[in-house]
């Protein structure tokens, strides 16, 4: 305890030095919070946004569908499995869908594209980007009706308006070519050309009839969870629960590889930046502590001469670095808190910049023009312990130097 007080006092013998070092630590905290916070927020945002583009956080699908999607790969018992999934903790939504390719034709033209057949009772704009992006009309509410929701670019290509008919042709489970007619009940505009030009929503029961699926078959169950980080955990849980070799459970990391790649590279850059900045700050801390030790060789010599064991001396210097870390953290929290709060509540608005560029997407996901910040609990712990460990490690060498002090030698020098 006494050693502790001594360390604290020592720290304040040179206020300026301690404050500057403390400030550099707090700068580290600040940067770490900003980098990690934008990452935690941004990735979650992107993953959640991407999850609403069709594949969710976790999907349950027929084996092999992800690799080579085709309409003859069907998931059986899908409604029953959905019922089970929806009761699980952490699952915020689950919905049954059919996904396939089709040709869409009007009297003037035809285009290729893909359809997502959905159950209007279990879908909502919260879990479906295309429903959210409807600009005209409304989502069909009959699952065996003739509604269709198409994108603005496809509507333009086919020269079709709300209420007009569109004929789609696809291949059923027997490999037969089947055609159906639908009327446009809504038009969406997501801003993503590849979605607006090639994706449509169809009512699931109608599609089941067209394709020859039973009322219980589908391509997949899309599961949305409240915390994207639990996707892999849920995947494993569902795999065990369903326990069927014909069924595959995949997380977004597996179904949305582009996004996974984008996040990986961004995370790597982010971590690397933090490590490098941390290294620089560590060099600063080391510098401070080492100088502090070297100035006091005489003092240490006396302390050792009066019987202080080297281990206590070592502990003293480590304690100094410990208190330095505390000071740095307190300063860090002081300067970071208002900034964090601002980003959390208000955010940085890049709307104008994005508008200039005409919308912004990465990895096929629309990005929110307002940058917010959010830290996971784990990240806060990681940052705090990171700073602590960094400081303590920086203290090791100076502490070792202090122990090496030869009391007789130091006392000789003037």
């Amino acid at each position, binding site marked *: 305890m006494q050693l502790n007080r001594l360390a604290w006092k020592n720290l304040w013998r040179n206020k300026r030095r301690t404050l500057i070092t403390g400030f550099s630590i707090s700068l580290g905290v600040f940067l770490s919070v900003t980098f990690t916070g934008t990452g935690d927020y941004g990735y979650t945002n992107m993953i959640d946004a991407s999850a609403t583009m069709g594949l969710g956080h976790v999907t349950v699908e027929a084996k092999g569908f992800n690799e080579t999607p085709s309409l003859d790969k069907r998931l059986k018992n899908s409604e029953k499995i959905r019922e089970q999934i929806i009761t699980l903790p952490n699952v915020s939504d689950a919905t049954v869908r059919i996904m396939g*390719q089709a040709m869409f034709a009007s009297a003037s033209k035809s285009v290729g594209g893909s359809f997502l057949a959905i159950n209007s009772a279990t879908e909502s704009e919260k879990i479906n980007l295309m429903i959210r992006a409807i600009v005209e009309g409304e989502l069909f509410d009959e699952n065996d009706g003739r509604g269709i929701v198409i994108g603005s670019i496809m509507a333009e290509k086919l020269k079709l308006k709300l209420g007009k008919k569109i*004929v789609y042709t696809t291949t059923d489970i027997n490999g037969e070519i089947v055609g159906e007619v639908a009327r446009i009940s809504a038009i969406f505009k997501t801003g993503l050309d590849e979605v607006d030009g090639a994706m449509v929503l169809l009512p699931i029961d109608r599609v089941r009839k067209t394709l020859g699926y039973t009322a219980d078959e589908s391509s997949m169950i899309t599961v949305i969870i409240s915390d994207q980080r639990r996707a892999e955990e849920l995947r494993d849980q569902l795999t065990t629960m369903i326990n069927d070799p014909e069924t595959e459970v995949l997380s977004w990391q597996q179904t949305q590889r582009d996004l996974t790649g984008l996040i990986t590279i961004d995370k790597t850059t982010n971590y690397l930046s933090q490590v490098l900045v941390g290294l620089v700050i560590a060099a600063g801390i080391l510098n401070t502590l080492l100088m502090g030790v070297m100035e006091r060789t005489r003092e240490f010599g006396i302390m050792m001469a009066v019987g202080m064991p080297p281990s206590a001396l070592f502990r003293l210097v480590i304690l100094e670095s410990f208190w330095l870390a505390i000071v740095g953290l307190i300063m860090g929290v002081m300067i970071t808190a208002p900034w964090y709060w601002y980003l959390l509540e208000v955010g940085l608005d890049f709307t104008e910049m994005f508008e200039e560029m005409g919308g912004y997407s990465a990895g096929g996901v629309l990005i929110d023009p307002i940058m917010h910040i959010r830290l996971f609990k784990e990240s806060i712990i990681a940052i705090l312990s990171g700073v602590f460990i960094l400081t303590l490690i920086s203290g090791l060498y100076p502490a070792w130097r202090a122990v090496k002090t030869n009391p007789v030698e130091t006392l000789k020098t003037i």
Partner: protein
Amino acid sequence: MRLSRQLLGTIFCLLTVFIPSHINAAIEPPSAESVERAREILRSIDDLWRGDSSYAIFSMHVKTEHYQRSMQMEAWSKGKDKSLVKILKPLKEKGTASLKSGKHLYSYLPRTDRTIRLTSGMMMGSWMGSHFTNDDLVDESRMEEDYTPAVTFEGVRDGNDIIEFALIPKEDAAVVWGKIILTVFAKSLLPIEEIFYDEDGIETRRMSFSDYKVMSGRELPAVMRVTPTDKPDEYTEIIYETLELNVDLKDSLFSINSLKRRR
């Protein structure tokens, strides 16, 4: 669309009859009476064209903005949903064949000696470079199922006694058109012209018939010409050279194996 069947060699199977009225005339809801009368006439037209099987040789001339080509083809048909077409000329493409069996459409490619089944993605592609799509060929003639007919005009137009029908696709029919106007001669019930409109009543393509002559004991139009309305300089024309009706054809003719067979 029905047209396709004829294209495939059966000039008969159903009909596609009827004259254009004034083009953009909006269609009023047909009265029950006119629908019944239209059905009756369509049925007799159907009878007129009915035949179990056919064999034909015809030539096809295609003119587009970019190319012009002529082909001679040989065609067989049996029942409603079996037909086979093989190219005779030009030599370069000789042997290329299309087989329609039920709802499937296969192409045989002699150069590579491969048979390909067309997928839904190709249905809207052009058939042999013409103005017909593959879908036109496959499309069953479901005139009666898919359309509600109505007689919209009967009497003399341009010196001919004609009947004009409007065919309105039923709500559930997988048909892209908004309506089809068909004109036939009142007496012979032979088709004169068929015009396709989109849902806004804008004409998109037109098929006309001419050169009526007796073939295989029946009077039929030997020339059929399709023109896309937005490209008036383009057309596809089919001219029948030989037509035999009710010939004896084996089912095995309409198999994938016979696609490859050279005659």
